[in-house]
């Protein structure tokens, strides 16, 4: 039978993951002739041989792809074999397509995989005295190492990465060129002879001496700024209270928990209780910081995670981390190299200025960081890995969109915990977590990161999706973007759409958005909403009762004010003695706040679930002032987790107002105030969680009965509360409904941009 000549285009995450070596091996095993190469973000294969072998190859391209690859699309063009009958099968140089070419056209998304933690093989070599890369802090192979943080351009090849400045030595070059080697076409391959070097900036010491300087300083109770993959990190001894407190003071981070890095799973289990799902998440290639319940008396300094039983643990992500942990043999605080809300420092000179007042020493190296990726934060919810902050190790992996975008889309996200999304066709690229946009440097980091990813993927978004809030700096930015179409997306519609989209739901769904605050369609603030939604639109079916926020953001920062707001100016009168709360507060503040509420002075009104959490936390004396966003809710959840039994729920009521079902929280709050100080806080906190579950299930059952829709997407910042998330999915299941949670993108505002992109794509598609 005559040979055939197949051109195969593989799209998805197929570069920097050992895909070409894999194709090389399979094709050679099958006796095929031809070539494989990276073109833009794709892999292009030209294979000549018998049709049967070509079919086997094509099946393998998907079915046996390397673990880190994610094949989204295979396109095959077959022709009878022409003049080209190359001898053997080879990897050839990468290329860029002329604009407009290729299956997805110009700017096809894909190509740059996220960074990957050091693999087991490299780790073994790292600590093998006989290996030529023994103790080399930049050891890597096709299966691990930096990717997104070193890429300059596509196709992803050494020449277009931060490794371009490190010409391979003969031995590394031989490994790079040897199809049988683990480092065949590993773009970041290096060794002590040819690769990046550590440097202790104080005196220019390099290599082992630099590592020793960092180790000694940390052991002596100092804070060292360590240049990581996607930015500088601040590292200190997690068991030494004095240095942890000093780090808090210098970083202006009074209470928000610090992440702790430990050498391995065994060390993690000493500090916290891990489920098998936690094990898998914590040891996975993405290496997020994983939130797990701490064991009491685990030896960590009290300042590591004050006020909550949840501690964020992660394992080493780079060989350098492994070396540090091996030398120090204790848990280390490893936190973003920044002050307060600033973005993590990436540039060496910038880091030395900005971290000068924080770090006692700098352990840097000479491989530039091309893109800023902070550490990711995740947790397991009912056994499923769930991202709280999506950055290093996850971004810029692609997510699917339920409706393909007819034109490239930019979704600018919200304000805090900011991310943006660019989308083309059926794929969305959610940029890394970037912090709060009211920080000028975070705003610049956002625009820089956006520009870099657009350039990398040769994409020019002409449709821009944004929030309704006119004051978000993202909305302001969207207004200046040279767009052909602007798509405003209501905040909570975006939240629930992000959940539906990542589950690939089609058709209408119910959306429960339990959140802090977002601007609603009616100009009031929302945050405790039940919507009937599709990707293109939404209808509000139910909401939480409203309350004023005395002083706006000041009330968000001070839950005690929020409690006064509910008690003195809420939509429903609370029939209980407010003494347990009021007696604790400054009488002058109480008087002014009451007056503000009466007169409506800077008292925006919100139907928010998050603010109800704040108010309850304060009424129970758990938290009057929030040291970081959401602290009151975190502390209330921690309090509830201490409850051994399963206390009965508190009373609640559903009212009907203007055709909406409204959760009337007044009986709930009355009962809490009545019992505050008499029943244990843990019991009341648990009862409150249970009450919210009951209310929500009741509202969803009503909505399902009215609409015939039984799928419920649960999203918004409050779903970061594991007790609430698991309670809701279980409660909905018991009522015959199906609850869906966010896993791939955060339920909080980090997921907003993805939801906006899903909505914008669907609306644009519907127009066509």
């Amino acid at each position, binding site marked *: 039978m005559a040979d055939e000549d197949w051109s195969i285009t593989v799209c998805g995450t197929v570069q920097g993951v050992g895909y070409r070596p894999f194709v090389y091996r399979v094709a050679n095993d099958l006796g095929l002739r031809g070539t494989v190469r990276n073109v833009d973000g794709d892999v292009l294969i030209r294979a000549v041989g018998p049709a049967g072998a070509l079919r086997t190859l094509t099946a393998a391209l998907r079915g046996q792809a390397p673990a880190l690859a994610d094949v989204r699309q295979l396109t095959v063009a077959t022709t009878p074999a022409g003049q080209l009958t190359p001898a053997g099968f080879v990897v050839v140089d990468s290329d860029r397509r002329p604009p407009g070419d290729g299956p997805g056209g110009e700017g096809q998304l894909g190509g740059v995989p996220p960074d990957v933690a050091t693999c087991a093989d490299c780790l073994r070599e790292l600590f093998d005295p006989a290996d030529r890369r023994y103790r080399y802090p930049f050891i890597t192979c096709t299966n691990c190492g930096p990717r997104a943080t070193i890429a300059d351009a596509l196709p992803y090849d050494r020449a277009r990465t931060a490794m371009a400045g490190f010409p391979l030595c003969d031995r590394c070059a031989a490994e790079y060129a040897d199809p049988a080697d683990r480092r065949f076409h590993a773009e970041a391959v290096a060794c002590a002879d040819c690769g990046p070097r550590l440097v202790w900036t104080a005196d220019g010491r390099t290599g082992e001496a630099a590592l020793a300087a960092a180790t000694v300083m940390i052991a002596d109770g100092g804070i060292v700024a360590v240049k990581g993959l996607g930015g500088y990190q601040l590292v200190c001894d997690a068991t030494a209270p004095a240095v942890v407190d000093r780090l808090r003071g210098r970083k202006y981070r009074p209470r928000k928990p610090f992440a702790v890095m430990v050498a391995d799973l065994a060390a993690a289990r000493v500090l916290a209780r891990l489920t098998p799902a936690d094990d898998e998440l914590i040891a996975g290639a993405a290496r997020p910081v994983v939130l797990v319940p701490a064991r009491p008396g685990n030896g960590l300094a009290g300042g590591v995670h004050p006020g909550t039983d949840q501690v964020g643990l992660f394992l080493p992500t780079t060989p350098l981390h492994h070396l540090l942990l091996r030398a120090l043999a204790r848990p280390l605080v490893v936190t973003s190299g920044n002050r307060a809300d600033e973005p993590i420092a990436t540039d060496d000179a910038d880091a030395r200025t900005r971290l000068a007042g924080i770090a006692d020493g700098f352990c840097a190296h000479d491989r530039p960081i091309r893109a800023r990726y902070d550490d990711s934060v995740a947790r397991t919810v009912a056994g499923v890995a769930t991202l709280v902050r999506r950055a290093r190790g996850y971004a810029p992996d692609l997510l699917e969109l339920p409706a393909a975008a007819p034109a490239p889309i930019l979704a600018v996200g919200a304000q805090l915990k900011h991310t943006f999304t660019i989308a083309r066709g059926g794929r969305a690229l959610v940029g890394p977590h970037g912090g709060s946009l009211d920080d000028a440097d975070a705003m610049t980091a956002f625009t820089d990161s956006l520009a870099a990813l657009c350039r990398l993927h040769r994409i020019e978004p002409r449709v821009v999706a944004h929030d309704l809030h006119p004051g978000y700096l993202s909305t302001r930015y969207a207004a200046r973007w040279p767009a052909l179409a602007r798509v405003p997306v209501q905040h909570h519609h975006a939240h629930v759409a992000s959940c539906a989209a990542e589950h690939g739901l089609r058709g209408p769904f119910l959306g429960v958005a339990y959140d802090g605050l977002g601007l609603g369609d009616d100009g009031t603030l929302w945050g405790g909403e039940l919507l009937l939604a599709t990707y293109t639109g939404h209808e509000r079916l139910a909401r939480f009762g409203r309350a004023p926020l005395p002083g706006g953001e000041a009330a968000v920062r001070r839950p005690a004010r929020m409690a006064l707001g509910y008690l003195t100016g809420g939509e429903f009168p609370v029939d209980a003695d407010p003494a347990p709360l009021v007696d604790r507060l400054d009488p002058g*503040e109480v008087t002014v706040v009451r007056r503000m509420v009466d007169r409506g002075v800077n008292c925006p009104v919100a139907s928010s679930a998050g603010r109800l959490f704040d108010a309850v936390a304060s009424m129970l004396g758990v938290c009057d002032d929030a040291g970081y966003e959401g602290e009151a809710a975190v502390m209330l959840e921690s309090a509830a987790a201490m409850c051994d039994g399963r206390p009965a729920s508190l009373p609640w009521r559903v009212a009907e107002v203007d055709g909406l079902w409204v959760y009337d929280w007044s009986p709930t709050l009355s009962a809490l105030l009545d019992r505050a100080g008499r029943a244990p806080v843990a019991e009341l906190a648990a009862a409150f969680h249970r009450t919210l579950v009951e209310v929500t299930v009741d509202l969803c059952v009503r909505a399902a009965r009215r609409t015939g829709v039984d799928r419920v997407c649960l999203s918004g910042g409050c779903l970061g509360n594991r007790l609430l998330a698991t309670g809701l999915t279980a409660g909905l299941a018991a009522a015959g409904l199906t609850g869906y949670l966010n896993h791939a993108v955060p339920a909080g505002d980090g997921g907003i941009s993805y939801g906006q992109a899903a909505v914008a794509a669907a609306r644009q598609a519907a127009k066509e």
Partner: protein
Amino acid sequence: LGHGAGGQLSADLVTGLLLPALGSAAPAGPLEDAAVVPVGGVDVVISTDAYVVSPLFFPGGDIGCLAVHGTVNDLAMRAATPVALALAYVVEEGFPLADLRRVAASAGRAAAAAGVAVVCGDTKVVGRGAADGLYVVSTGIGHRPPGAAPSAGAVVSGDVVLLSGPIGSHGTAILSVREGLGFDADIASDTRPLHRLVAAMTAAGGTGVHALRDPTRGGLASALNEIAAASGVPVEIDEAALPVPPAVAAACEILGLDPAHVANEGCLVAFVAPERADEVLTAMRGLPEGGGAVRIGTVADHGEPGRVTVRTAVGSRRVLDMLVGEQLPRIC
């Protein structure tokens, strides 16, 4: 219409609706406090403003002197010497005559003290409910001597940002009396004329005085953003240098307001060439209305054009934005 608080929405109303409606009669160039109109070789400066403050009487002043000071100051922000004012009163039927007399007398005293004449006026009485008590419209005319020609669009990188005195008093005092919040015992409006201060500044700084603005509605943040946008420059302010009286800071804290968003009636912000900044600052401090003058920031040579950032006490840089309508929380 939610455009009452100054800031972004009022700016949108002007640029989006009112200016286009004027067609070819609309002024060119950036929006300024007052317009410069060359008449027979003289730079005549003209400004008009409607005053709708509630309450009409407040600690430190009333709507009468406010109407005089506001218009005198708008003229002064273009380095004009104010010459004459016209005042129009819109009075709701049933408004107490004694109060009207008090307001008019206050306006007269303020004009005399400022050395300007009130040369014409108008009075209209409208039906009950058609107005809220009393509105005052004042129009001012002045002339600008050769020399400094400050404009919102004339700021360049390297300029030093000067502030003539403490911020936040007027807005907090008004709010406190109107809503009965009890802060007005310690806080009074800063309403006062600034033309003599400006004369001293231009005498000292000459053409080095690039831009002047009195941060009234929308506060210092709006004034800085308007100038940054009109000149297309990044502005960096040092939070620690901002003079906020302790009573104002305490009131703003509890009310959830940023003092930089609160209205003032007696201070100005100036953008001055760096080599003249010290002389101008010294000249300012020589007058009572400039006694608290300070340097609060600079025009950066790199950064996002039009963006105002504040270097916080913590050392990070916060974007200082204009108020958008009534302030809505941006925290989720």
